[in-house]
């Protein structure tokens, strides 16, 4: 690192043969290695004393190096990296903004709270699923675009669902007394009693579907409790629980990469499918009410979209991979 310092305050832009400039740059790169030895320094001294052009070249390189040293450090490195991460995250979105033209409204509507994903213990991107073994041996699966914190302590086994959807297969607690197992959402908590179940965080609501055992729901703002049994589904917001529905599939089909629909309006179907892809899927009003039934793949959403055109009188237009419109044929 300790290269001879020949910095001068006035830098004249002299015509230096490019071969000599190149040699000066190579010396700089050698000194930057942090591993140059004394004989390298001696060879450098000999090169530098070859003539005035070498010295001019070295002076110019040193002017650059000292400006670089002025700013280089952990904080500026942090700045350059933070900015790049922010840009990378916005890039996909930006592509969309240029296409749509109505930038800001869309940006506000589609912006996902990225800090949640960064702060969360585990998260998945669009179209990604991930299985995690919990500290007690239970299994947690994250569906597409989801984020959770796992907070186990001596009194409670707690999963915080920040975003998206999870499936939980609980295990018997190895501690005594047995600690309760709880999934917290933005609207309240679901307490599991020896179960397999799914929790999904939507805008303002949480949906719980149980396939085995029993789950107790407790909205945040009221003293109300609802028990959901195997084969049932319920949703709740902060102030209350909605009536139960029967769900033969238990809402677990996504674990196998599938999505089921039973006379589902196309609009809802596409909104659901859109969770598994980057970008936007738009449904034209004229086809939004078409009913759809069947089993579809969420792993290959392009293929699912193509399959739709074979069973419904619709047309699919790709402006880009990230912007899909569905309209009447």
């Amino acid at each position: 690192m300790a290269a001879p310092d020949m910095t001068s305050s006035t830098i004249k832009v002299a015509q230096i043969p490019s071969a000599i400039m190149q040699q000066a740059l190579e010396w700089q790169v050698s000194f930057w290695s942090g591993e140059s030895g004394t004989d390298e320094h001696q060879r450098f001294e000999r090169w530098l004393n070859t003539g005035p052009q070498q010295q001019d070249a070295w002076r110019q390189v040193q002017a650059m190096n000292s400006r670089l040293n002025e700013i280089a450090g952990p904080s500026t490195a942090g700045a350059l990296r933070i900015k790049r991460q922010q840009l990378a995250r916005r890039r996909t979105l930006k592509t969309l903004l240029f296409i749509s033209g109505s930038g800001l409204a869309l940006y506000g509507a589609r912006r996902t709270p990225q800090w949640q994903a960064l702060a969360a213990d585990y998260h998945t991107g669009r179209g990604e699923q991930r299985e995690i073994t919990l500290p007690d041996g239970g299994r947690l699966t994250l569906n597409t675009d989801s984020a959770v914190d796992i907070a186990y302590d001596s009194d409670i086994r707690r999963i915080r669902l920040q975003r998206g959807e999870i499936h939980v297969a609980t295990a018997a607690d190895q501690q005594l007394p047995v600690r309760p197992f709880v999934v917290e959402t933005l609207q309240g908590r679901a307490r599991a009693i020896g179960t397999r179940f799914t929790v999904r965080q939507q805008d303002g609501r949480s949906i719980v579907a149980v396939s085995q055992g029993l789950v107790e729901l407790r909205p945040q703002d009221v003293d109300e409790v609802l028990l959901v049994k195997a084969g049932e589904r319920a949703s709740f917001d902060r102030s209350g629980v909605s009536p139960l529905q029967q769900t033969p599939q238990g809402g677990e089909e996504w674990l196998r990469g599938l999505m089921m629909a039973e006379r589902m309006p196309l609009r809802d179907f596409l909104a659901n499918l859109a969770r598994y892809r980057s970008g936007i899927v738009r449904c034209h009003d004229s086809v939004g009410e078409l009913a759809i039934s069947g089993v579809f793949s969420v792993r290959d959403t392009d293929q699912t979209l193509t399959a739709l055109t074979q069973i419904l009188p619709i047309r699919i237009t790709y402006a880009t991979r990230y912007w899909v419109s569905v309209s009447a044929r």
Partner: protein
Amino acid sequence: MDFAASSPATALTREVSALYCQHHDWLRCWLQRRIGNRFDAADITQDTFVRILLNGHSPAPEQSRAHLTQIAKGLMIDMHRRRMLETAWLESLASMPEQHVPSAEARAIILESLVRIDVMLDDMPAKIRATFLLSRFDGLTYSEISTALNISVATVRKYMLKAVQSCMACLDGSP
């Protein structure tokens, strides 16, 4: 930005004055619609005309507005880059011990160079960028970088040679 000294009262100054009188208000309104901030719009309007004076040639009359908006757009991007970097840097400084925080004046100077480096990094391939940052900003030796990025020391050296050439072009000592 001492443009008065570098360009005496010539035909150019007269042309730019005319351009300024005709289009200044229009450009400011155009910018304000896009940015939504009166002060930024006024600043960028001013800088746009300064830039034309520094460039040394004014546009043909029928292209005046296209030319002005093109320059203004570039300046808007520059402003955005500078703000993002400044915010990111302050964020990063906030996590450091207090004695490392530079004065306001030093910050302005550093930010200037930081903007240049950032432009340079944008043009670099990702691997060279990562190598350069580890070496010059994190102070790693080439062997350490070679381990961190799983590339040979010879490759680290090759990347750094590319990076040093970009540095010469971007930090050539001129203000």
